[in-house]
């Protein structure tokens, strides 16, 4: 199966149809996506700024890491799932969008950056845990991480401005909040 057929299959799924045909589903996903990504990027920034010696310098790096890691992975899961659900509503268009491709590339680079950190500076954490700044490898990883995640946010916003959201061929249901309230 070639990629276009695979993308078309995703767009034809029942879930994708349900999202396109609802007045509320897509905005709901977008809101959860913003909530999740804000928590992920904010959590990463707390740790990166600690390693750069900008914030939380009195607190050991390992403590700061534990403070944010506990919930940041859940937030990443929320961001990934809501992003995937938005993607399948218009998979062919997003797949060919340059900003979507750049964003996915940068996410992969952010992952690779973490992997490099794990086998370099992370190995010697006990030696610099309470230092105001991480050693060079740690500061480099923190800087690359901050730059990539800020760029990922910009790319995400540009996807929204360079694609047109697809809605169901059926007219949107004439339901709004007032219909749900007592008259």
């Amino acid at each position, binding site marked *: 199966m070639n990629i276009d057929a695979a993308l078309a299959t995703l767009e034809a799924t029942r879930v994708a149809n349900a999202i396109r045909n609802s*007045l*509320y589903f897509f*905005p709901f996903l*977008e*809101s959860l996506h*913003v*909530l999740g*990504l*804000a*928590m*992920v*990027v*904010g*959590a990463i*920034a*707390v740790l990166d700024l600690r390693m750069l010696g900008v*914030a*939380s310098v009195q*607190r050991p790096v390992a*403590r700061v890491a*534990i*403070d*944010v890691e*506990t*919930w940041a992975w859940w937030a990443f899961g929320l961001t990934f799932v809501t992003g995937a659900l938005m993607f399948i509503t218009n998979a062919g268009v997003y797949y060919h969008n340059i900003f979507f491709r750049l964003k996915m590339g940068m996410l992969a680079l952010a992952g690779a950056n973490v992997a490099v950190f794990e086998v370099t500076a992370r190995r010697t954490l006990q030696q610099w845990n309470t230092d105001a700044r991480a050693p060079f490898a740690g500061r480099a990883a923190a800087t690359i991480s901050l730059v990539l995640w*800020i760029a990922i*946010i*910009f790319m*995400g*916003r*540009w996807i*929204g*401005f360079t694609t047109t959201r697809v809605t169901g061929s059926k007219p949107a249901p004439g339901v*709004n*909040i*007032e*219909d749900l309230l007592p008259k």
Partner: protein
Amino acid sequence: MTAFANWLAQTPASTWVASHEWVIPTVQSIHIVAISIALVSAYMILFRVLGWVGADQSLDETMRRFWPWLFGALVVLLVTGLVMVLGEPARELLAFSFWSKMTLIVLGTLLTWLAGRTAVKPLGVLTLFIWIGIIFLGRLIAYDHIWGSWSGSKA
């Protein structure tokens, strides 16, 4: 408010923002970066109030670490938000989502400070949800029609 929005749309600052296509996406992106700093700063304080993270550190110390970042991010959000209002005055100022968001921001900021000072846990939980509400209402400015006749926006 409609008259004010129409007047604002005629000002040179507003027409400049509206006529440069890159301004709004750029400012919105900076707005989202600042949201991540503000949200996580507020949440680190509230998570500490609830005893979920950093329990080995005093609440006062947690407030000292994160309150300045929350406040600084809110200033960036205010400035970038004002540029967005300038770009599309009627879409923002006539939106039910916009004014309910502004109300919750004032409430959320005050309650985060109060929770950080008093350590009252139910207040911490309530404030967590207020910040989620702010994010939802921010996104819903683009979909203000879902509020029916409560919305004055034509967006």
